[in-house]
Structures are given as structure tokens and as C-alpha cells.
């Protein structure tokens, strides 16, 4: 199975063959973020910034001011926390055309443990004006999204990932648009809104639920900001219950973004599957997701709970 970071490196390389308007900034983690394949093919289009994320982030804005599009490839913890004030004041506030591609998200990081497991990045980045937040579900969608992100003028935070993932989409089968989500599975009893690695688990949960006679719609919330309000409201009217699923703290993440739409436009009971406001730990991602209750079985349980709460 491919990893999202490898898919990111390959997608960058593919796009770079066609266009020369972007470069990549690397804080000495090229192996970790998946950009080494790009670096081998286009060594002159990678700026080695050293382990100095704060300087890198502000510098990216300076480079953008000369017309190039810098793509900062960084671990999510450092992109969204160590250098967040630079992302805010150097990039988002002056609205410079910088893309931030973050790997190492949530429990998906695995053995490196809590210091490197970003479980707050969505909450942080989506609270910054001008900043868009994207979390593709698989390598195919990531490739489609990357091109749209580079074409868009303005700051974007793109989440990739570290561990191998199953592909969901067939090549050429999926496009990407800001503010649009896709309904991957129809269902009338409940809607599961998922992001990133959790989309596959939501689909697995939906299969299990189907066997139990529960029809669960599945939404892929890859554009977390802007979010697809129309589709969320439509699904809330149809199913009258939601489960959100993310490899992120349940505070402030994609689930919260969905709840913001629901509570304002079409209130419905919600169960949130995510990390319950505690730090991660070392381990194999597959073990960790069970330990922390974000596996497909946890989504099934959340669906059962929310259906009981339906009016």
C-alpha cells in the first residue's frame, strides 16, 4: 500500500514536469515528508532550510513575494505549532501565496509517539483567516487536490500522512474542489462525515452497519475549510443524525467544523469519533486506533449510539 507522503512526493514530481512556478522548502525532513523523490528529479527546486521552521515559514512568504509559489513540506506538529505564528503573521495575514504540506498527523504517525503526533493541527489552522485546510482521503484524491491547491492564489494547509493507506478512488475518478465534499456511500439512517485516513474506516463501518440493517451515508470531508455546508445540511435533513470521524482531537477539528454547520443550520444529534482530548503514544497505528477508539468498530458503536438519540 502507498503512503500519503509518498503519493505527495510523486504528485509534486509529476506536476513539476509540467510547470515551473513552484519550489519546495524542506526543514531537513525530506525523507519524512516524502519529497525526496522530487528532490532527486528537481534538486534545484528544493530549498534546504535546515531545522529552523520559524525562519522557513516567514522566508516562504518572502519568496512568494517575488512570484514563485513555495510549498513548505514539514511535519504537522512543527508546521501548525512551532511555526504557527509565522504561518499566521508572515503568510496568512499578508495573504501570501504559500502552501503548507504537513505530514505526520495524529496516531497515523505511530512509533515516534506523542511529540510527533499532531492532533491539534486542524483546529489551529482552520482558525486562521485566509487559511484553507485540506485533508485528502487517499493518494488519488491527494494528487487531484495538489494541482487545485497550487492553482489557487492564497495560503493553504494540506494534510498528507505517514503510514500506508488503502486507495479509495480509481485513478482519474475523483476531482477536487474547495468547499465541495463527495458522498461516497448513500444511506438514509445516519451520515458519517470523515476526513483523511478515517474515510476508509468510515466506509468499512458502513459495510458492517449495512449487514446489521443500518444504512449509513459516508461523506469525505477533504475540504475542511471552506466546508461543504450545502451537502452537510442536505444529509442532516435526510438522515437526522451524524457521526464525525477523524484522527485528531475531538476539540476543534473536522468534527467541530461539521457541528458548527449543523448547530447553526440544521441541528441533529452528533457522536464524535476522534482522540478524546489526550496525547497519543508510541505504537503501531493499527494498535493505537483501537486503543484510542478511532477504528472502524468505534465508528459502528458511535452510529448505534447516535441512532438511539434520533428524534
Amino acid at each position, binding site marked *: 500500500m502507498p503512503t500519503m507522503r509518498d503519493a505527495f512526493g510523486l504528485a509534486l514530481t509529476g506536476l513539476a514536469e509540467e510547470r515551473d512556478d513552484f519550489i519546495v522548502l524542506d526543514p531537513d525532513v525530506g525523507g519524512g515528508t516524502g519529497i525526496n523523490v522530487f528532490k532527486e528529479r528537481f534538486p534545484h527546486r528544493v530549498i534546504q532550510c535546515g531545522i529552523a521552521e520559524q*525562519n*522557513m515559514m516567514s522566508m516562504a512568504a518572502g519568496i512568494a513575494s*517575488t*512570484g514563485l509559489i513555495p510549498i513548505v513540506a514539514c511535519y504537522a506538529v512543527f508546521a501548525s505549532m512551532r511555526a504557527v505564528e509565522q504561518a499566521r503573521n*508572515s503568510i496568512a*495575514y499578508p495573504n501570501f501565496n504559500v502552501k503548507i504540506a504537513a505530514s505526520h498527523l495524529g496516531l497515523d504517525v505511530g512509533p515516534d509517539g506523542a511529540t510527533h503526533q499532531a492532533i491539534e493541527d486542524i483546529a489551529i489552522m482552520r482558525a486562521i483567516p485566509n487559511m484553507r485546510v485540506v485533508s485528502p482521503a487517499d493518494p488519488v484524491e491527494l494528487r487531484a487536490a495538489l494541482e487545485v491547491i497550487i492553482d489557487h492564489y492564497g495560503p493553504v494547509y494540506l494534510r498528507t500522512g505517514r503510514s500506508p493507506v488503502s486507495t479509495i478512488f480509481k485513478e482519474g475518478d475523483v476531482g477536487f474542489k474547495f468547499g465541495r465534499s463527495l458522498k461516497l456511500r448513500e444511506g438514509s439512517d445516519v451520515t458519517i462525515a470523515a476526513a483523511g485516513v478515517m474515510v476508509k474506516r468510515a466506509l468499512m463501518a458502513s459495510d458492517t452497519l449495512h449487514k446489521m440493517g443500518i444504512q449509513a451515508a459516508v461523506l469525505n470531508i477533504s475540504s475542511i475549510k471552506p466546508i461543504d455546508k450545502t451537502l452537510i445540511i442536505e444529509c442532516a435533513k435526510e438522515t437526522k443524525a451524524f457521526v464525525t470521524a477523524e484522527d485528531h482531537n475531538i476539540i476543534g477539528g473536522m468534527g467541530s467544523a461539521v457541528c458548527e454547520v449543523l448547530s447553526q443550520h440544521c441541528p441533529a444529534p452528533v457522536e464524535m469519533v476522534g482522540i478524546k482530548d489526550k496525547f497519543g503514544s508510541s505504537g503501531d497505528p493499527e494498535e493505537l486506533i483501537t486503543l484510542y477508539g478511532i477504528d472502524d468498530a468505534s465508528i459502528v458503536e458511535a452510529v448505534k449510539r447516535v441512532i438511539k438519540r434520533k428524534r
Partner: protein
Amino acid sequence: MDNKRLLELTTIAKKIRSDIIEMNYYAGSGHPGGSLSCVEIITYLYWEVMNISPEIRTKADRDRFILSKGHSCLALYAALYQKGFFKRDEFKGLRKAGNMLQGHPDRLTTPGVEFNSGSLGQGISFAVGCALGARLCSLSFMTYALLGDGELNEGQVWEALMFAAHKGLDNLIAVIDYNKLQSDDFCENVTSLEPLLDKIKAFNWHVLEVDGHNFYALEHAFDRARKIKRRPTMIIAHTVKGKGVDFMENSPKWHGSIGLSKEEWNIAQKSLF
């Protein structure tokens, strides 16, 4: 520089000082001390060194000035006004809702401003990015950055210095407005910077030390800096905080965010002329 030009620059600097005082009075807050200390540096850059004017402000090859010590924007605004970037009426709206001149520079609202500085340490990194971008895009412009001395407390500054020297960015010239005073107290009492020259030299920059209020000294420094190859230059400019206004000079009280009373404004204007 001949005597005539020296006199002209001196007159421009006086007008800038007077405008700083005026803006600060209207706004009722702001950072007069650090704005007054960098007047000659900004004057010399905008009138003698840089290729910049309202007509070319969006051209790719314009020279860049990054005010890394963004709180001293009163001096920048006064210079941009005199250069014709915006009208004098804007002074009265400084720091007030719905107006162009923000409490710290905003490139999206104010013509001539290159970067939204104010969060210390970020401007120098941005300037390094401009210089590197120029090289990547084969553009021949120069980037000038002005840092505060207190700003050097920020770790990000030293990341930027290390990186700029590593890349040999000779299209970058930075100036430290070394007025010896930071927000609450003298630099020496907060976190001593000395030996400053040795520190920056050790980061592999070409370093010059000048009297930051002397136009001849600034001329000499910028002339030399622009001839240096394969290394960025740092000009340590020794200045006086609050320069030109007797009761503000060397007083931590006038760092900011503080506004002049009408009486203080009158005394300050008299002390300038």
C-alpha cells in the same frame, strides 16, 4: 555626498521627525522612541539608496525595504508619504478604525509597505526570502531590512542570520537600529546583546558599525556593503532612542504604546526646529 545634498537630507529627516510626532499625537498611542531613532537610516535608504517609487511599487525588480521592527512604522509612514505613496490626510487616521494606517504595517492596506511586520523576528526572515527569491527568479533588486536591538532577543533572527550567510546572500543588507533601549528597559538590563559585532561576525556576515544619525557614515557603510560579494552585510547603527526630542531621548517611557499630550507635542516640535 556634497553639502547641498546633506542639507536636503537633513531637512527631509526633520520633516519625518515632525510627522512622527504629529501622527503620534493624533493617534494617542504608538511607538515614537524607536521611530525617531531610525529616521536617518530610513531617509538615507529611501532618498539615496533604493530604487523605489509609487510608480514602480508593484514591479518585480523594485528594491525592497522590510521594516522588521514593525512598531517603528511611524517613521516608515512619514517617509512613504513624502515619497508620494499616499496623502497626508491619512496621518490623522493612524491606529483608528476603518483607516489605512495600521498600528503595525499592513501591505494589503498601505501602498509601499512590503510586509506585515510587528511580530518581531519575522521581518528579517521575510527579507531573506526576498533575497533568495530574487536569486531564484534572476531578479537584480536589493533587499534592505531594518531590525531593532530588542528584536535580537528573538531566536528566529539568528535562524535567519545563519541561513542568509549559508546561502551567501550578498543582495541582502540589514541594519540594526541599536538605540540600546527595548520595550521596558535598557537592552543591557533585559538580555545583554554584547559583544554584538562579534556575534554577527561569527554568523559569517560582513559587519559594519556606524553612527546611525550621520549621513556621511551611512553613505560610507551602504557604499561598502553593496560591494561585498558572497556575504550579506549587517550595519550596526548606533542611535539614540527618541532622537531629536529632548524629553524622549534615552527614556524607556517613550518606547510605546504611548501618545503625546498637546503640550508635549508643542515642546517636541520646538525641540526639533
